[in-house]
């Protein structure tokens, strides 16, 4: 039996369902470039799933966005966008390399993760924090549902999220 440690991240201080979704504006990156967008501008037309992942290049980001792409969440009734501590250049390359039809907010200072209560201070990378893997379903300015990882690594409960966003 190979032994390994799954790190317990402990409880999060994530914004709970029923609370207002913290507003923010960041560069929204696609495979072609980026421009500042506000959360409010994206939620004006309906529900939105905000997916926080570790940095582009980590296997967690690769696996998460590949799964979301393969499940076709770009075509569901809910807008799906990401948040990452990676820079716009890194995210544009990540989206292009993975053929991901999504936008990801670039948030190198991790302020959005802080506002949503999902900061993960990285062990062994001094001075760098990024989000925990997490997803928030936002509708009409309110957090309707949230999924926040408690362990490292842990993946999103795709089936449970899919059941909600395709309602």
């Amino acid at each position, binding site marked *: 039996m190979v032994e390994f440690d799954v790190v317990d991240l402990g409880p999060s201080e994530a914004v709970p369902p029923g609370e207002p979704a913290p507003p923010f504006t960041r*560069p*929204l990156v696609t495979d*072609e*470039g*980026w*421009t*500042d*967008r*506000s959360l*409010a*501008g*994206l939620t*004006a037309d309906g529900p939105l799933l905000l997916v926080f992942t570790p940095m582009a290049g980590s296997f967690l980001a690769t696996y998460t966005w590949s799964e979301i792409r393969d499940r076709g969440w770009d075509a569901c009734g809910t807008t799906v966008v990401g948040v990452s501590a990676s820079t*716009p*250049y890194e995210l*544009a390359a990540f989206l*292009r390399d993975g053929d991901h039809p999504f*936008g990801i907010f670039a948030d190198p200072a991790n302020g959005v993760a802080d506002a949503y209560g999902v900061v993960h201070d990285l062990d062994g990378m001094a001075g760098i924090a990024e989000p925990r893997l997490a997803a928030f379903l936002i509708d009409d300015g309110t957090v309707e549902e949230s999924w926040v990882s408690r362990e490292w690594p842990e993946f999103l409960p795709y089936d449970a999220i899919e059941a909600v966003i395709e309602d």
Partner: protein
Amino acid sequence: MTESTDPSLTLYRLQGCPYCERVVRKLGEYGLPYRSQFVEPLHSRRNAVKRVAGVRTVPVIVDERTGVTMAESDNIVDYLEATYG
């Protein structure tokens, strides 16, 4: 993914590009609100600009108010002076 508060001017720009900064300075001089759409350094990855303006060079300005889409900083500065100066 448009926003109700979108300015009518969009500037396609490259970080650190002096020709783009020239247009930025002119926009600032006239107090014109604009949206910045950043593109990537590699020409071959600028299909978004190509679709909008037919070229892969930046700066490119799109003025929804007048329906003008324009490349080349000389031309853009002349246009801004003539339209908003």
